[in-house]
């Protein structure tokens, strides 16, 4: 039994099949990348796995439990965490507070304790803050802790989102284009970070357009085209697969930055 199993997952919008009959599985410590041309259904697949969309067909099994269509916050309790393609940062908070929110499951407690600032509430908040500061240091944002999140650069926001997702100490981490819009140095940092997280035993599911990065760090690659899985396997195998090459060449001409 794998940590995360995706079985025959499918959904359609307004009669158009966005994702159809996709199967694969992820083991602890493994980095699985999902690639495919624009509009292949990668983000939709992510949204179904993470409970943002409710799949029409198929099942998502996490640690042996069927969690299909479960709301994101319930999945979070079961150890699933994610980042977003178009950033979902809490713009109305500081960088530190954004990171602390990642510790919500650990720091939450009775509302009354929070309202009256009881010692329990203060202790929980303190612990979460210490954890958040440590995480910010890990992603290189410790100096920006007290700045408004809205004032950070795009690359920094990407890292902040990863920090927030890591705060939950997830078993499975879904990263939707973590390196998009980042320069070479930043990409490199994120690259290392992902490898490090995986090495600690977290299963990572990655959507990324930077093929060099994907080929470098993935253990396993799933290729989507038009919502269907057309290939899967180790990076070297997949890059030689004629169907994959065709799918990419077909779109490369229209969309150079793929």
């Amino acid at each position, binding site marked *: 039994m794998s940590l995360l199993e995706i079985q025959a997952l499918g959904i359609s919008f307004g009669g158009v099949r966005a994702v159809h009959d996709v199967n694969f599985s992820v083991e602890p410590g493994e980095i699985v990348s999902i690639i495919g041309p624009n509009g292949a259904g990668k983000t939709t697949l992510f949204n179904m796995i993470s409970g943002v969309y409710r799949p029409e067909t198929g099942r998502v099994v996490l640690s042996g439990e069927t969690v299909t269509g479960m709301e994101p916050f319930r999945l979070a309790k079961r150890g699933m965490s994610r980042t977003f393609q178009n950033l979902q*940062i809490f713009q109305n908070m500081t960088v530190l507070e954004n990171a602390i929110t990642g510790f*919500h499951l650990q720091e939450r407690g009775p509302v009354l304790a929070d309202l009256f600032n009881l010692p329990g509430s203060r202790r929980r908040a303190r612990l979460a803050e210490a954890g958040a500061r440590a995480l910010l240091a890990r992603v290189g944002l410790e100096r920006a802790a007290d700045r408004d999140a809205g004032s950070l650069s795009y690359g920094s926001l990407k890292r902040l989102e990863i920090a*927030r997702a890591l705060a939950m100490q997830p078993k499975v981490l879904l990263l939707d284009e973590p390196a998009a819009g980042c320069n070479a140095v930043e990409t490199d940092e994120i690259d290392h970070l992902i490898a490090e997280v995986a090495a600690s035993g977290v299963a990572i599911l990655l959507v990324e357009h930077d093929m060099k990065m994907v080929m470098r760090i993935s253990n396993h690659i799933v290729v989507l085209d038009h919502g269907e899985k057309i290939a899967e396997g180790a990076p070297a195998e997949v890059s030689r697969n004629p169907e994959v090459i065709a799918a990419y060449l077909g779109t490369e001409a229209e969309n150079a930055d793929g």
Partner: protein
Amino acid sequence: MRISGKYWTLIFLAALIAVTPLFFPSGYYFRVGSLLFVNGLAVTGIVVLTGYAGQISLGQAGFAGIGGYACALAPVHWGVPPALAVVLGAAVSGVLAYLVGRPILRLKGYYLSVASLGFGILVAMVLNNERELTKGPDGINVPDIGLRGLLSDWGLNLTNGEFWYALTGICLLIGAWIALNLQSSPTGRALRALHGSEVAASTVGIDVARVKIQAFVISAIYASVAGSLMALQNKFVTPDIAGFLHSVEMVTMAVLGGVASVPGAILGAGVLTLLPQVLTVLAEYEQLILGLVMMGVMIFLQEGLVPSILRWFRGRDE
């Protein structure tokens, strides 16, 4: 860093409440002060709901009505002491907010505002129509809270105006303290997170529906207590307290001053409480000016008075 900010705000507020009476030329100013504090308390509840959690309710006055009428009815019908009726009203408001909140907080933006608006109108309608109980649109007498007599037994003689100024001032301080506690607490962070992005809040494990209801219940209790204090102070209450205009007034006060922060919202309550008193000289133009102020502040100071002014100061420092 946040901690000291919180206590500075409270100390400043307490000093303001304690010192300004030294400059009051007549008892009327105590009345205006206590009005301001009651409005400030109601508006602090809006900060929790709208400022922190980002949910817009146009039915808050419904809870003020429940609080107000609890003080009118419970002492007469069930012999509850008026001071305890405040707690009873708050409890009823909280439970009702929980029951009503479950379905309507699923809605977003304008749909949420129309649903909450409907709730407020329903409460006002019941208060208007159930004449047997509420005496209808002409209003109903509210018994004296009785605490003033108690204080004078202890040798503290206050005029009615002074007593209410002090009582509502203390209530406002407590209310502000609680809301400020919440802001930097785990629950408060969860509320502000869902304001920022509901889907991201959910992915970090925040039960969005649950914390939304918590915010709604908390803000309902604030409105209810404010309504109770208003009714007890006036010794009289009419269904207008639950009316749409009162709901709009509360939201306007909060947004005008800066809905994301407690001091901002209280300042907004101050401005809109004082404005009509200042404008009596120009009574005919009151509406005109009120409308202009509302539009002007929202156009030029979109975050409200306090945040915009703070930003301006900060901008000058740099």
